[in-house]
């Protein structure tokens, strides 16, 4: 489902003296359906950069970065948008929402974008919010005022509401209490069972041991960098 061939990334900072920073090069690996792979490496090694490239958020400079057959290094915006709508889900660490939109709709949105009728979409969203222990009293409110842990769970609900065949998880269990952490690990296990290919960053070592089938040290793709 994910296939990386000789992927490279360089940042050029034009307004800071044209400094170039080589973050990654020679990244090669594949992730198959039903498999969960953890990206590891010290802070600054390029884990998040690679995750963002896998979502098409950062541009790949070299190589091929295939997700479900679409090469993110070459795809047109609408191909990436379609991929994100149908195939590729992303649970980031931070929730970015439109002000004023109720939590229930924030979670239901990926389904609404796929054309699911609003009632079914909201039903699925409600099911996940309940599973993730978000009190029903909060569903009609915008998540912008929620606590960090609550926002994190809203984000997770949003990432799991559609059964994406490919999933990116950036620290899905950070800032969660043990009960909710267990729920999230269950969701990940369920997604694997239905055949989702997952790439994640897990600082939580026990969680990584529990759900991941393999680990990839991003430091192996790190080249020399400018001072």
């Amino acid at each position, binding site marked *: 489902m994910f296939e990386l061939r000789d992927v490279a990334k360089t940042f050029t900072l034009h307004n800071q003296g044209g400094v170039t920073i080589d973050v990654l090069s020679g990244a090669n690996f594949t992730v198959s359906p039903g498999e969960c792979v953890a990206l590891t490496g010290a802070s600054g090694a390029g884990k998040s950069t690679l995750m963002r490239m896998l979502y098409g958020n950062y541009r790949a400079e070299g190589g091929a970065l295939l997700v479900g057959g679409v090469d993110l290094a070459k795809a047109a*915006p609408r191909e990436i948008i379609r991929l994100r709508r149908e195939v590729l889900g992303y649970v980031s660490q931070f929730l970015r929402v*439109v002000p004023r939109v109720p939590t229930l709709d924030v979670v239901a949105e990926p389904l609404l974008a796929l054309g699911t009728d609003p009632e079914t979409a909201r039903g699925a969203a409600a099911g996940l919010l309940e599973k993730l222990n978000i009190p029903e009293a909060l569903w009609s409110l915008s998540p912008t005022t929620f606590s960090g842990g609550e926002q994190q769970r809203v984000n997770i609900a949003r990432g799991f509401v559609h059964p994406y065949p490919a999933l990116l998880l950036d620290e899905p269990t950070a800032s969660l209490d043990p009960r909710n952490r267990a729920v999230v690990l269950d969701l990940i296990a369920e997604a694997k069972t239905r055949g989702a290919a997952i790439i994640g960053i897990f600082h939580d070592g026990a969680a990584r041991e529990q759900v991941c089938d393999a680990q990839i040290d991003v430091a192996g793709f790190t080249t020399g960098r400018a001072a």
Partner: protein
Amino acid sequence: MIDDDTPLLSVRRLSKRYGAHIGCADVSFDLYPGEVMGIVGESGSGKSTLLNCMAGHLAPDQGEVIFDTAVEGPRDTLLMSEPERRMLARTDWAFVHQNARDGLRMGVSAGGNVGERLMAVGARHYGDIRGTATDWLTRVEIDAGRIDDRPTTFSGGMQQRLQIARNLVTGPRLVFMDEPTGGLDVSVQARLLDMIRSLVRDMGLSAIIVTHDLAVVRLLADRLMVMKSGHVVEDGLTDQVLDDPQHQYTQLLVSSILQV
């Protein structure tokens, strides 16, 4: 979901000069059905010139603006006769001005403003027109009780929502927007953005939005075009252009935003 492979709008080498000064130069792109594209750049970058050339408000010096018409398929709108283009402007196209006063008839009631566009495409039954107008006022969150009031009695945010209702009532396929949230309070902006977003999704609209506000494009646009001195310096997926800008000017633009 079925994606159409024929672009809704194809712009080719569109250029406009004001004497020696370049308005916009050599702009080409394809916009597909359901896509929302943002055009950003500082004042004088040519983004409004480009929008007005595409929408038929300004005559470009060269180029093509090919629209996939419902009846005849792709046609260069610059070669259409004036009546044809006017018909297009009130059926398949819509234009939302920055200043609602430019897009509304200020001396006509709110219901009249919405109904007028319906009548322009042949609606004649008064009850139906009033019913549709009421429905649209509600959709843009204007109290149906204000239907007989003139827009002069509305707040800026309400006027802008009324302008949107007037534009969308005929079910256009392509909407041009020029700074749709410019000049409005931040809280009013948020509400308007949320509304535009829902309408675009529910109606499957394609839109081209000109703005200098990067937060607006982040929220509304699938893809982004960055203009400087009349030229397109960078384009791509909105979050990619904003989070991983490649061009020097885009990097400057993105890094100049104050963090809240």
